């Protein structure tokens, strides 16, 4: 599939790099003992360190370090046994220190990789440039007062991992797949909850365009995108804008832009000529962060199975299609549900029932998997009753609908509604005889070579049985009778 975009003057190649800010899952902040919990009252989760009172000193949270290493390992990245915290200096009302503690020259994690799968079945390896630890800033509320901004420092000092990709992405679709895959890995690892609505995962997207084979074009950076959809929309809008500007004889400026969700367009932020002069220097309050290879190896030994490995296992060992495996492994909860429902059973049938019937019903009801009225075990039992011939696949759909509605077990529903499949040869033969007797004209046509009518007889017999006849047996017995 070509990713080139058609313009007036020919085709353009899109080059995208992403900087993702992922909030580290931890109880307390990166350099202070105040809580990271979401939803506290204004300035309640703030210590005097976070408020940058004079004389306060930062002390690093060991769990945040561990989470960053773990994430680095999940991205198959180099872990740097020594890294350095720097001050990134700028002034803003929600940054009481006047600088953000970040890592500039010596990040904790170096180069890694992340593999994305696209809907056309292709997969692409995207380079990770680096991952570093840094502090989040506070939150400004601009809509509470006509001439004032309100500042809440609850987020101030919360640990973030900034994960920077190489400019390896070539389309909005790839960028969407990248953020989804990254989110999935973070959630499997338990290092970030991936909750984009609460701001736990935000992306800055760098976009440029060039003629295929030409050197890189000038890039723009669209900041603070907090949904997969907005990331993809902003890229499409920005690509379109850049091509129009260049083809109209204009020039792209390296600038920061904002995505306006109401218009679906990007617009330039008021340009601040000094905005990028951060005057980084090593934070004199913090010694270099060091740990041993042994510590890294211990964390590596405890890594959970990651979505890529799990997907490969589902394809190779369970015989699932690559697509089904991708759907079932995107969310860890889904994979766990599936493992529970399918263990000791026909893995493929369970996969089908989950990805078609269960997801369909959940979608329709607007429920998440966690809210599913059907438990993994209950779904597994339903599949058992299909595979052992108690009910047909057709009847199973009705039973499933009933289970979803009432939360009852499949066996109970089958029992109380008398839905058990008829597998008694005599009973089925009697039904077939009746169908043949009532449709003698069609029987003659069939015997004279109109093979297509076979389906009609199957249908009539199934109808007569109220859908409960064993379809395999109906087929077999009909063939014999119609000879």
């Amino acid at each position, binding site marked *: 599939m070509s990713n080139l975009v058609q313009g007036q003057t020919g085709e353009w190649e899109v080059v995208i790099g992403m900087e993702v800010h992922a909030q580290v899952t931890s109880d*307390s902040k990166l350099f202070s003992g105040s809580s990271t919990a979401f939803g506290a*009252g204004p*300035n309640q989760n*703030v210590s005097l360190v976070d408020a940058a009172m004079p004389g306060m000193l930062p002390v690093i*949270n060991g769990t945040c370090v561990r989470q960053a290493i773990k994430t680095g390992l999940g991205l198959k990245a180099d872990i740097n046994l020594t890294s350095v915290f720097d001050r990134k200096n700028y002034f803003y009302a929600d940054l009481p220190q006047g600088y953000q503690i970040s890592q500039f020259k010596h990040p904790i994690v170096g180069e890694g990789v992340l593999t994305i799968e696209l809907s056309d079945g292709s997969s692409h390896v995207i380079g990770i440039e680096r991952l570093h630890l840094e502090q989040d800033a506070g939150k400004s509320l601009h809509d*509470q007062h006509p001439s004032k901004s309100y500042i809440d420092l609850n987020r101030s000092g919360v640990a973030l991992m900034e994960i920077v990709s190489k400019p390896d992405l070539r389309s909005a679709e790839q960028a969407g797949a990248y953020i989804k895959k990254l989110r999935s890995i973070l959630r499997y690892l338990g290092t970030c909850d991936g909750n984009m609505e609460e701001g736990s995962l935000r992306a800055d997207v760098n976009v440029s365009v060039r003629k295929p084979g030409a050197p890189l074009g000038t890039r723009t950076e669209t900041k603070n995108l907090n949904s997969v959809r907005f990331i993809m929309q902003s890229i499409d809008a920005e690509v379109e804008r850049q091509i129009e500007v260049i083809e109209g004889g204009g020039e792209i400026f390296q600038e920061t832009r904002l995505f306006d969700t109401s218009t679906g367009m990007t617009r330039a932020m008021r340009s601040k000529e000094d905005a990028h002069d951060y005057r980084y220097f090593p934070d004199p309050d913090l010694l270099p962060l060091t740990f041993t290879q042994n510590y890294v190896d211990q964390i590596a030994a405890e890594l959970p199975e990651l979505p890529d490995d799990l997907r490969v296992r589902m394809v190779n060992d369970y015989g699932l299609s690559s697509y089904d495996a991708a759907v079932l492994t995107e969310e860890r909860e889904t994979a766990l549900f599936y493992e529970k429902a399918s263990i000791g059973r026909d893995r493929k049938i369970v996969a089908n029932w989950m990805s078609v019937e269960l997801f369909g019903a959940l979608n329709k009801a607007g429920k998440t998997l966690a809210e599913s009225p059907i438990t993994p075990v209950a779904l597994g039992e339903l599949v058992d009753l299909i595979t052992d011939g108690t009910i047909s696949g057709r009847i199973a759909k009705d039973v499933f609908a009933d289970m979803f509605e009432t939360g009852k077990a499949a066996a109970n529903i089958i029992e109380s509604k008398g839905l058990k499949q008829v597998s008694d040869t005599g009973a089925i033969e009697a039904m077939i005889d009746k169908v043949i007797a009532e449709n003698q004209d069609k029987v003659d046509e069939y015997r004279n070579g109109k093979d297509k009518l076979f389906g009609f007889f199957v249908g009539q017999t199934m109808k007569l049985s109220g859908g409960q006849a064993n379809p395999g047996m109906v087929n077999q017995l009909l063939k014999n009778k119609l000879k």
Partner: protein
Amino acid sequence: MSVDNNTVKKIARLARIHVDEDRREALAGELNAILSWIEQLETVDTDNVEPLASVTGHSLPIRDDMVSDGNRQEQVIANAPETTSGFFVVPKVVE
């Protein structure tokens, strides 16, 4: 490297420090004196010397991930010129 009056103006603005125009010349001189001292340090051969971050021999202290602070909103906002319902209130800063 040499600092001129314009550089003084720029770094003063970046640091949000007001410097009167007639002070720039003198400050440029002071900064240049510091820079020439650093240039002198740069003549020392450090090719085979590990960077030194501390002379105490300590490594970075690390704390456990425990909530041990917070819930001191009153103290946090005590010095603010203006507050409302627990927020700091500042002149509107918005893009």
